[in-house]
Every structure is written in structure tokens, then in C-alpha cells.
């Protein structure tokens, strides 16, 4: 199993279309590094993106330097995945 320890999912709230296009640019700047769970759609909708641990510092700096407000929706994906596996094993037992 691939391990996602330290990967986070950031929830970004873009204020306008300009900020939305900045998020779309990020996908180009970080090919295969940013995995949009909820893609950039419209300002009223949140954008969720999984960022690998190794890219977190860069991506957060990019967001902050462009005034993009974000919150950490999932602090460590692997913790959730481990809980999911444990719940499946428990159910099977």
C-alpha cells in the first residue's frame, strides 16, 4: 500500500475568479503534486486539494503569498486511512 503519512488536504476558499485561476495555475506549477479532491469551480465553492508532505511548505507559501485563505481539512491522511483499515478489520472479526 502506498503510504500517505504527512499528506494533508487543504480547503481553500477563493474570493474571486482571479484567485480561482491562481489555484488552477498551481496544478500546472506542481504537476502531479497537487491532487484536487474538489476542483476549482466557482468562488462560492470550496477547493480541496491533497498536498504531499514534501510539497506542503511550497504550496502553503504559494497560497499565503497570494492571499488565498485556507484551512487544514485533513491533517494527516494516513491516520484516516489507518482508521479505515482498522474499522474494516474489526467489522470482519
Amino acid at each position, binding site marked *: *500500500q*502506498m503510504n*500517505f503519512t504527512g499528506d494533508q*488536504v487543504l*480547503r481553500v476558499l477563493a474570493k474571486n475568479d482571479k484567485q480561482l485561476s491562481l489555484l488552477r495555475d498551481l496544478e500546472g506549477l506542481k*504537476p*502531479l503534486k497537487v*491532487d*484536487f*479532491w*474538489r*476542483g*476549482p*469551480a*466557482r468562488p462560492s*465553492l*470550496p477547493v*480541496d486539494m*491533497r498536498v504531499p508532505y514534501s510539497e506542503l511548505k511550497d504550496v502553503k507559501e504559494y497560497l499565503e503569498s497570494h492571499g488565498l485563505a485556507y484551512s487544514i*481539512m*485533513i491533517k494527516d*491522511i494516513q491516520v*484516516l*486511512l489507518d*482508521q*479505515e483499515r482498522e*474499522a*474494516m478489520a474489526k*467489522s*470482519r472479526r
Partner: protein
Amino acid sequence: LERSTSSFSYSSYHTLEEIYSWIDSFVTEHANIVSKIQIGQSFENRSILVLKFSTGGFQRQAIWIDTGIHSREWITHATGIWTADKIVSEYGKDCILTNILDTMDIFLEIVSNPDGFAFTHSMNRLWRKNKSSRPGVACIGVDLNRNWKSGFGGNGSNDNPCSETYHGPYPHSEPEVSAIVKFITDHRNIKALISIHSYSQMLMYPYGYSLEPVSSKEELCNLSKSAAQALYKVHGMQYTYGSISTTLYMASGVTVDWAYDSGIKYSFSFELRDTGQYGFLLPATQIIPTAQETWMAIRTIMIHTLNHPY
């Protein structure tokens, strides 16, 4: 392996093997109303299975429901399994569902992307696409919800094989999509199509590939509203609804656009609940509440389809 559905937990996530074993037990135990149809093979030669709920008749008007086209969205498969059980347990009790099944058939494909789903259990929990590969192409997988003919290759899809929204080399290139296309096209009497995804908490209708409203927009919008209201009453989950391109974003080559363009008027796509905490990794404790609310919306769409033949 479970030998009967009685020990199967509908409030847990399951592997592909467990789901396929459950399907066999489920069909055996409810042979009077459910049968299993294999509509094709996946890229890695796994069976693509559809449950057929029918009380008789020949080539009746029917409703198609699919879950799991994006493999990492486990909540949709789990919702599909719960919905199958709900249909057999409510037939003869819920007069609306009984009316529907006395007149129409229901087809339910629970694992629309078996290779991707198996891969989420074996190697990569966050895999989304199928597992197709082509010579000379470094990356694997096509987004099965960008591979449909209508609007293929347009905005909101990607021609980069390494992207999560890669649309594939040509329309219906993927066996998982072409199996559904062939089945629905050969059937000729599917009157509603419901494709279940996760997550954004939305109920949407065509188009994704165009901002142009469909001719039935008003009816579909009103029906979405009713369905979202029925869903809300269960656990208070507030859905937004509208066409894909105006509610969410442009997305070309999606299932419901093809269905609508193929004459299936009542074509809807669900994006299931977004609690703002887990994305599509909803904990298993939320499987049944999510399925319960989704069922009420599906039921609303089905009874409308029954009452408005076309």
C-alpha cells in the same frame, strides 16, 4: 467468505471480493426479484456486474443506477449496496417503490470500475481512474467520467494521460464505459439514469460540456429541487442542485450528458455529502445515514419517472 448476506455489514467498507461474494448470496436469497447480469469485462478482465431488479415483463421501462465509477469514492459503492438491500426489503412494504417495481425494472451497477477499486485496496487508496494502459504512454488510467462521447475532450477534461481527469484516447475507449453504453443502447428502454459520485453535496443534471440549458431544464430543475428536499428531510443535509456546468464546473465527456443525448431525459449525477472534514474518505459510521438520505432522493426521481412516461 460470507455464505449469506445476514452476516454482511452494510455499515462497513468492503473489498471487491467481499462485494462480489455478497452479490452472489444476495441474488440467491432474492432470486424472485433480483438477478445478476455480467455486462462486460474490465481492462484487467474483471467481471462487470449489474443487479437487475424486476417483477417480470419483457424489456420494461427501466432505471439505471451506477456507483463507484471513481474508485476511491468508497462511500458510493457502500451506498449502492445499501440501496440494493433497501429495494428488496421495501418491495411489498413501501407502496411507492412497489408501484415502481410492478411497472419498471431497476438496474444497479455497484462497482463500475472494478480494477480501480481493487487497486484502492491493494496499492493506492486514493486511486480514482481505471487501470488501462497503452504502449508508449507512461501514465496509467482514464477518468471514466470523462470518456463518454458527448462533449468528449472538451473543457473540464484533460488530454494528459497523467492527469486525474484524463479523458482517454477516444470516446468509449474504456471497456468499463463501453460495457454500459452497449447495455443501455441495446436495452432501448432506460428512462432514467442516476450516476453516483462523491463528494460536493450536489444533485446535478446535464450539461457538463456546455453552458447551454437542456430542453428539459425546467422539469429537471424542479425534480432536482424535490429530490434535494426529500434528501434534506432525512438528516438535514442541504444539497445544491442545477446543471453540472452552472452548479459546479464545465466537465466534458460525462455519463449523464451522454445519457441525455441518448434520449434518457431523467439523467442525474449525485455528489454525496461533504461534511467538511473527510472529503470522500467518509468514516464507515456515515455509510448508512448517507445511503438513507440518498435513497429518498433516488426514490423521488424514480417515482417522477414512473408518473411521467415519455
